[in-house]
């Protein structure tokens, strides 16, 4: 019985691994193809089954006048917007989450849980809905097609995540720690900054990782709210989607866009293994 269980366990894990890897392997193979290799039917192994070419990859770094999309600038834009918005969201979200975890708020029937739900509910709205209002809002305050405008919108997208994770995190940090700090002569701000904050780094890192992931993969707002000055990576990549879907360059782009986040995956895993995440997530 245990042997069978072990076998099943490994079998399932390997099966899932194959499922996870399959599209990536396919993308790697496809990224070295061209029109003819693609339309000739499914092939997998370069040289053996098709003649590999670097066309798909070179498109990513050529200017538009040579049929490329040159993703370098957008790449850094994406990184900048994602990180800045994540940072602000974590800062504001952590403060709010701390208040919601430690203090009691009451205004009529509205209580802590309702406020928390209000934060999280900002993610319920489908992006389509908000795109036009956001467009008009940003154009009114003159931030359309700017990094600052995108960051503003991303804060709305990301702060709910930060609040959600940090409320859970703080609920697991004994409130007696803050109380002790207060008794030891800290006012509530000092208690937070001198005692709670240094012990919340794991939670904030997790919240930060989630924010980065959700910021990085957004397409819709970046698409609607920018024109020429600011281009983010996903928007730029989607611009490859011409009448013919260029399987090769889209595959290469997909691989390039996921690359930095694989580093994030390693960081997450490190935190998990070191146990630093204990209590960092609900």
């Amino acid at each position, binding site marked *: 019985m245990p042997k069978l269980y072990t076998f099943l366990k490994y079998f399932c*894990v390997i099966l899932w691994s194959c499922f996870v890897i399959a599209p990536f392997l396919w993308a790697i193979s496809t990224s070295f193809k061209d029109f003819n290799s693609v339309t000739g039917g499914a092939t997998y192994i370069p040289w053996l089954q098709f003649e590999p070419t670097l066309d798909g990859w070179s498109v990513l770094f050529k200017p538009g006048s040579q049929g490329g999309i040159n993703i370098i600038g957008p790449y850094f834009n994406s990184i900048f917007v994602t990180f800045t918005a994540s940072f602000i969201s974590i800062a504001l979200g952590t403060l*709010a989450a701390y208040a919601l975890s430690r203090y009691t708020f009451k205004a009529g029937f509205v209580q802590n849980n309702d406020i928390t739900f209000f934060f999280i509910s900002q993610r319920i709205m489908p992006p389509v*809905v908000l795109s036009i209002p956001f467009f008009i*809002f940003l154009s009114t305050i003159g931030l359309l097609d700017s990094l600052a405008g995108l960051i503003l919108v991303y804060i709305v997208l990301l702060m709910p995540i930060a609040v959600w994770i940090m409320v859970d995190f703080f609920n697991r940090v004994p409130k007696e720690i803050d109380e002790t700090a207060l008794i030891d002569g800290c006012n509530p701000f000092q208690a937070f900054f001198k005692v709670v904050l240094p012990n919340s780094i794991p939670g904030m890192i997790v919240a930060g990782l989630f924010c980065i992931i959700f910021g*990085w993969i957004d397409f819709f707002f970046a698409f609607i709210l920018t024109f020429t000055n600011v281009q983010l990576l996903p928007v730029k990549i989607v611009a490859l989607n011409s009448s013919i879907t260029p399987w090769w360059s889209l595959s290469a782009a997909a691989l390039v866009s996921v690359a930095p986040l694989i580093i994030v995956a390693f960081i997450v895993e490190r935190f998990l293994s070191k146990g630093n995440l204990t209590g960092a997530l609900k």
Partner: protein
Amino acid sequence: MNFKHKFVFLLPGLIVLIGILIFPIIFTVRLSLSGWNSYNPGLDFVGIKNYIRLFTDDPRFWESFFRLSFLAITTVFLQYIIGFFLAHVVWKDIKFKRFFRVLFLIPMMTTPVIMTVIWRTFFHESLGPLNDFLSIFGVQPQWLSSPGLAKISIIVVEVWQWTSFMFLLLLAGLLSLPKEPFLAASIDGASPFKKFMYVTFPLMAPISIGAIIIRLIEASKIMDTVFVLTSGGPGTATETSSFYIFIKGLREFQMGYAATMSFTYLIIMIISLTIIAKVLTKVLMKE
């Protein structure tokens, strides 16, 4: 604790959020009462005409909503089961534990709109690898062009992408569980299955509820996948609410009506998520 300082903690975030959102939300409500469209842009006032149209004359919206409910619940359920299983397996000793953990995390870090293009080529009925492989068995399923399979394809992609999210939350939850209950169970000689059913699962209930709710919220926005994979087709077989709203709003430019649908959708979602959260709490926390 109750000090005035609490407002200094809460308000910056709340004010920023409300400050950014107040206009868009009021605007959406106002827009829903207007006939804004491609040839008549502007906030004229048409009363609740749009709402009447939605509730009396648009079965497509409600069909798309029920389809969305089906897809969201199915995918989240699968993600939860698989995510829990995987997290449970790599929680304890297994060879290459860290490798598997990293691997299982990666899918959620891919941009859906780009990754789904890869999936579309993967599912391509005549040029994709999946049917190439299945041709060994002499079958050529119509992954994207038969109403039933198209839904399954969408579910597969959603499960691929977001199981890792569930996996991360549940694994982190497992790793933070106290050890005592497990020791107690071991001393009582509980079988692994019993240990799971009577110790692990109940301890994970609060984490599970949180993870399921947040995933349901995200899954109900499912759109990129549908857009890229099937464009809602064949027919309307894979149209979901947000995709339908997208079509009406940004394709047909019936902005007023799209706002009506959005606002209605938002209300329905808030109510149903509240109910789901309550029911889940009742069911899962009972143990």
